[in-house]
């Protein structure tokens, strides 16, 4: 059980429809951007290998559908996530307001241990656009309130800050990974007393 082994991190990206979740992921993984909008149906997956200090990390990124009619996977999707990225569009005020409910939904559905300290990262995307509506300070305050969630402003189009944001994602998930690694051993079988024979014929499954 060597801790030097390559680590696999499951990263969930959440946020309103059209805030640029898929674009961020594509920019991070493929360094590509397209202006065309294609709604994600259900889910999309990409993987990327990164090096965090001396550790090799594989990020398995689960890009979810922001549109409500495609959001059906919930629990199944969020289960066992190592980190959650919340994305909003700096030019759409509602997408920022929705962060609260995205975060709540994730915590309810995924039900992680110690939800207060679950690693989130918040990304304000599309800073390349002129018509910004959500001020940086407002977003930062919200993040501070939520137990100091790291906050990044990015442009998936121009590749600004994307790498840095995802590096933080990996770093924070990794830090949490170290905390838990409890050794545990299988339980021994006890033979019941003679007069209460165990029914070994029952199907255990």
């Amino acid at each position, binding site marked *: 059980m060597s801790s030097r082994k390559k680590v*696999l991190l499951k990263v969930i990206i959440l946020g309103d429809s059209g805030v640029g979740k898929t674009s961020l992921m594509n920019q991070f993984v493929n360094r590509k951007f397209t202006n065309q909008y294609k709604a994600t149906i259900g*889910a999309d997956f990409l993987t990327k290998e990164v090096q965090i200090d001396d550790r090799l990390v594989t990020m398995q990124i689960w890009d979810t559908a922001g549109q409500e009619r495609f959001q*059906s996977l919930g629990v199944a999707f969020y*289960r066992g996530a190592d980190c959650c990225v919340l994305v909003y569009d700096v030019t759409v005020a509602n997408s920022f307001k929705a962060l609260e409910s995205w975060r709540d939904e994730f915590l309810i559905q995924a039900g992680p241990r110690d939800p207060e300290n679950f690693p989130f990262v918040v990304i304000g995307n599309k800073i390349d656009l002129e018509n910004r509506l959500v001020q940086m300070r407002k977003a930062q305050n919200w993040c501070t309130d939520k137990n100091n969630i790291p906050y990044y402003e990015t442009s998936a189009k121009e590749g600004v800050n994307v790498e840095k944001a995802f590096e933080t994602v990996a770093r924070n998930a990794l830090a949490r990974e170290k905390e838990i690694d409890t050794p545990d051993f299988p339980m021994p*079988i006890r*033979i019941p007393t003679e007069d209460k024979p165990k029914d070994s014929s029952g199907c255990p499954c």
Partner: protein
Amino acid sequence: MTTDTSSNSNSDVFNNNKCSPIASNDLATLLEALPSLSLHNTSNIGDEVESAVFINNNDDHEQTVEERRFTSTGLISELIRQTSVLNTVHDNGASDDASYHSADEQALVSTIQTRIDDEQSSAISTLTTTSSSNEQNIPKHEQYREDIEQSLTDDDYEQLLKGDVKHIFILSDNGKPVFSRYGDEEKLLTLMGVMQTLISFSEIHDRNQLNYIKAGRSRIVFLHKEPLVFVLVTHLNEHHSCLLQQLNYCYYQIISTLTLSRIKHKFQVQPNFDLRRWLSNAEKKLLHNIIEMHEIDPGMMMTCAKCLTIPSNIRSQIGLAVAQTIRGQKDMIFAIILAQGHLVSIARLKQYHLHPSDLHLLINLVNSSDAFKGVEAWVPVCLPRFDPGGCLHAHISYLDDACDICLVLMTVNAENFQILSDFKQKISDKLKKNGLIGQINIALVRDRMFSDEIGCNELRYFAYKSRGLSQYTCSKLLAPYTTKEQHIRLFDLIRYVYGRLHDPSHQLKIVYYAAEYESLLGWLAPGFEMHVVFSPMVTLDTVTTCIDRILTYIKREESQLFIMKCEYF
């Protein structure tokens, strides 16, 4: 040309070969009129559950229960539609697959020819040709696996599922990979994510379990046993129940090494856990081996054990020697002697039965490692059908210098190594003193069914399972089944017949399948199940005569073919 009269006569005849003169009604009537049959069906074995080696396990029943889930069919077309949206599964020609049982049948005859061609050109056929001994071939297969893996480029991973090998993937239900039969699971993260999504999608939307997708040539079988997901992808024409069985063995194998309660607990406290951390190469090898074993072992298919053919008085001497040595030791559960994968004797605590599939896991454990040879090994083992929540401690050692005869002693007490080690010494001394090790060796050399005794030139192979005893016996594989690829091909066919015989949607008693290079008979009778392989042009007369002789032979030799009675501590 197909004659399918199954609905009336409870028997099925498939003729791929136009000249085959067998008609199903005749066959069923003739077989059921055999004088030797009455001896088998009225057998009193199994009545004495107490002394049975294995519990008279309701496997057949159990399997039906498990298979019954397959009969919900509306789901499949639904899912295929959904997957085509997700653009993940090739769905050519599968959309009409509302009831895949019937589709399966229609496709049957036309697929047989292609199937055989496929097999011959498939990558599996490139396996080196050697003797059919299991152990000898494992390293070769490993080499082959590595060859496949090394030859895969990143682009190939996209094409991985289109290849002709049977893929098996295991993931945890958080979507993280656990195991892949071929290829580096690290490169299959996306695929694993898609599989997890498919499973969850059907569970959330239909409150139903996704079991089986047939899409074009691909058959995809799913097994979700929290917190693990097992997926098999194949292009061969194997019955889904056999494929599901193979996945179940993978599940049992994982439990056997890691214990179900421990896995469940870990995922409860740490849902993001990566189970690969608990699987070293040795454990992965066990998985690879159980998958390969299933492809060539009729005992795993029929859920029963194969015993060494040995005179019954010798067997009971061996059993007594073991049981008497151990008697009085409270925490002992099982004491098993294996000879080259055959069960020689089993002694156990009263009221505790070993399930045949647990025995296969033990055999796999013993066969998978040379590390047990020449030493006394002490291994924690979970037997999932015995108790998936805890583990027993196995003392594994060999009783002869050639390491053919293996003694497995199982206790619940982790501190008992020294006591079991002393038992081993005493058992070994007793068996040697009475010449019983020599007797086992003689039986090993002799262990085969002489075709002469049956006296039928057209008989190529048979396997007979006593349903009451949960044991089977089979004839030795002779030419043309002496190479590994022929061996695998034969068992693919037998598994196909087995699948037809056990199909929950139409219960059959007899399946006769005239394939390209051989004719196969599967017969499920109240007291037994048998699978017989003949040369392709065999006549009805020969089939019935031959079956009669087999049944007579088995009844006559019963006491040395099977373990009729178990020893207790």
